[in-house]
């Protein structure tokens, strides 16, 4: 029993705010069910609150367990059995009790509601363990957006069908199987990638969780590694032939950012193109649809890379001492400048990616103003990239601070994007575009030069980060 209680406490210890909020939601949902139901839409409100709370709780729970389920943890006596018992208790709390309460007070479709709650929990858990599982729901979104009438008819008929309940249960079980199987398996830990690189789409890998890759993920990683190795060897050969400052900078880039060479960028764009196509297909079939959204999304994807730099540079600090000794700079400022120069390549890389995704979006959506989208994307992605790199290089070191800074950069960039679309639309390419470039690039370059100056001024830090 104590072990089950400890397992239940685990996510709340890691994410106390989440723990408190979702349990308040649970209480509120049960209160709605018990107190409001006879008079109003209490059941619907309660079910909604429970579904949202359950989804978030299980997402958090999965994130915690994903980090906890390392091979060493399986040495805890009866860990799997106790985990299963905890799972049962959790299902009773989030599904069984509310469903029983609903049945007792005569809420219609209580069994179906209970099954949907189980599905919400399973979805949250599965998405927390394996991020790619969220992609499985995209076809449903496409269907709902494309043919809302059909979707509505399907839902209506499903409520009446006796097959719905077992089918939903089956989906929930399948989701749990998909997420639990890799988590409970003991495998050899794959070698870590560079902390500055993130091959996953979300780039949100936590440091306490072992990198978990599917067969396709491992294959892609293998391709990226082969390309990175070749690029590094080429840079090394060129540097040996003629050791210029530019070639030295390229060499440092190949070391710090192994997956930011031309071939790897193309490969990443090809992979992202698949997801971008999916997104556009989803977005296309929603009314009203604004083609410029594609450009905004492309800029967001390009900027998603920069938070990794903040996290990665921190994690890499002990290893950077080795680089420092290898480069043997005359002054510390020179070393800091070398790093800043090496990382600057991320800005044109990000802009090129954003433009490529925008072109793809333009083709897929048959956008009516392709040049406007391209111009605004070019300016905003460059300006946003400069600001993002600047703030992640010298910004806050703690996770919360970084998230706030990141949110501010993303919000500002999006504001600039939409303002830019309006400005160019109203004033034309020359005046509108010129004004936008002046403001955005001026601000971006100003922030970047100031950050670079600050970064140069700072002493290099090689201390291991406190987790």
């Amino acid at each position, binding site marked *: 029993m*104590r072990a089950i*209680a*400890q397992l239940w*406490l685990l996510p709340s210890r890691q994410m106390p705010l989440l723990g408190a909020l979702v349990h308040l939601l649970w209480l509120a949902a049960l209160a709605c069910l018990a107190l409001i139901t006879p008079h109003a839409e209490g059941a619907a409100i309660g079910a909604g609150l429970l579904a949202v709370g359950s989804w978030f709780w299980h997402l958090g729970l999965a994130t915690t367990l994903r980090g906890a389920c390392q091979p060493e943890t*399986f*040495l805890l*006596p009866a860990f*799997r059995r106790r985990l299963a018992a905890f799972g049962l208790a959790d299902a009773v709390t989030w599904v069984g009790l509310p469903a029983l309460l609903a049945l007792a007070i005569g809420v219609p479709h209580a069994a179906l509601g209970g099954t949907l709650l189980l599905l919400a929990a399973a979805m949250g858990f599965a998405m927390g363990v394996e991020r790619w599982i969220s992609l499985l729901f995209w076809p449903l979104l496409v269907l709902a957006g494309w043919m809302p009438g059909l979707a509505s008819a399907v839902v209506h008929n499903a409520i009446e069908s006796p097959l719905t309940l077992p089918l939903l249960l089956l989906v929930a079980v399948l989701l749990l199987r998909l997420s639990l199987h890799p988590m409970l398996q003991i*495998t050899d830990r794959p070698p870590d990638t560079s902390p500055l690189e993130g091959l996953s789409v979300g780039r949100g890998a936590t440091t306490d969780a072992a990198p978990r890759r599917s067969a396709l993920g491992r294959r892609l990683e293998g391709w990226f590694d082969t390309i990175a190795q070749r690029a590094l060897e080429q840079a090394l050969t060129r540097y040996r032939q003629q050791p210029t400052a530019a070639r030295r900078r390229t060499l440092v880039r190949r070391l710090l950012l192994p997956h930011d060479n031309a071939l790897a960028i193309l490969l990443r764009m090809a992979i992202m193109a698949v997801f971008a196509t999916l997104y556009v297909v989803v977005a296309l079939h929603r009314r009203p649809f604004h083609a410029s959204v594609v450009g905004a999304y492309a800029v967001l994807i390009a900027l998603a890379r920069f938070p990794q730099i903040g996290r990665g540079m921190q994690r890499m600090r002990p290893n950077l001492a080795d680089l420092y000794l290898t480069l043997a700079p005359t002054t510390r400022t020179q070393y800091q400048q070398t790093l800043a120069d090496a990382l600057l390549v991320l800005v044109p890389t990000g802009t090129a990616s954003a433009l490529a995704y925008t072109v793809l979006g333009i083709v897929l959506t048959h956008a009516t103003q392709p040049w406007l989208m391209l111009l605004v994307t070019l300016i905003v992605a460059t300006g946003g990239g400069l600001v993002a790199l600047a703030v992640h290089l010298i910004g806050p070191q703690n996770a919360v601070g970084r998230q706030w800074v990141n949110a501010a950069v993303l919000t500002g960039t999006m504001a600039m994007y939409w303002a830019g679309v309006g400005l160019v639309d109203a004033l034309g390419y020359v005046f509108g575009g010129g004004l936008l470039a002046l403001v955005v690039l001026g601000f971006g370059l100003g922030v970047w030069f100031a950050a670079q100056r600050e970064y140069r001024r700072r002493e290099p830090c090689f201390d291991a980060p406190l*987790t």
Partner: protein
Amino acid sequence: MTTLLSFPAQPAAPVSEPAPVLRVQGLRKAFEGRQVLCGVDWTVPAGRVIGLLGRNGAGKTTLLRCLLGLAPVDAGSIELFGAPMTEPGGERLHRVGFVPQGFDLFPWMKVRAYLDFTAAFYAHWNHALAARLLDEWQLDSKQKIGRLSQGQRQKLAIVRAIAPEPDLLVLDEPVASLDPQARRAFMGELLALMGAPGKTVIFSTHITADLERADADIALLRDGRIQFVRPLAELKSRLCHAVLSRPAGWTTPPAMPGVLKARVAGASLHLLVEDVPTERLHQLAKDEEASLRIEMPTLEDLFVELA
């Protein structure tokens, strides 16, 4: 020039020995085609302290992790407390403690919360021992694990492993990050705790002085196999290091039964010999017209020569 001869087979174990804690047969393990363990056969009797020695990359960590089911194996069988160990499970885990080489679990958890979490899974947990060790080793129970130094994390991993008072304690380079005081304190605790009858310790280390202090049995892992397991005292009493020197130097070492390793360095021939009487060595020196110096090797000397 170095010639390494195969180590003589161990004498047959007495029939009345208790059931072994661990029995490994034909264990094989490869990483991406690189064979690390090439058919390990190893039996660990109960009540012994075993020092697993091997050079860097010899596969000590891999072997220890395979033994506990923490890494999948390619072939072979492992029995822990008499039952197959395909993956960690069963009541026997109450009897096993493990200190990994690196401890990076739950960085967001506080020390006290982590120990509470772990203790909840064990049928027996010596709270007094855990509290005393936290106090003596100056581990702040309110500190987050992520904010502990590497050495402090290692201490925490040791506390966590020995608090359930396991019958088998497996330690993977447990003292690598500890300062000399902490290392001595740890060895003292380890010997006191595991000195009880039936308690078994397997630990890999490069600090041979600790193994000497523990009077451990030495298991040498080389070329993916356990080359030998011998009590340290027996190794020291039966092996010696003979240095034969002559101005003409040596082209090939002379053949002689009992030579485990022969190495020519300038005008000297270094022989690591087992069970060779001193008279026989003097006779050899006389036959080869060389001077003879006999040294008693330390465990570190033996490790350097044999690993």
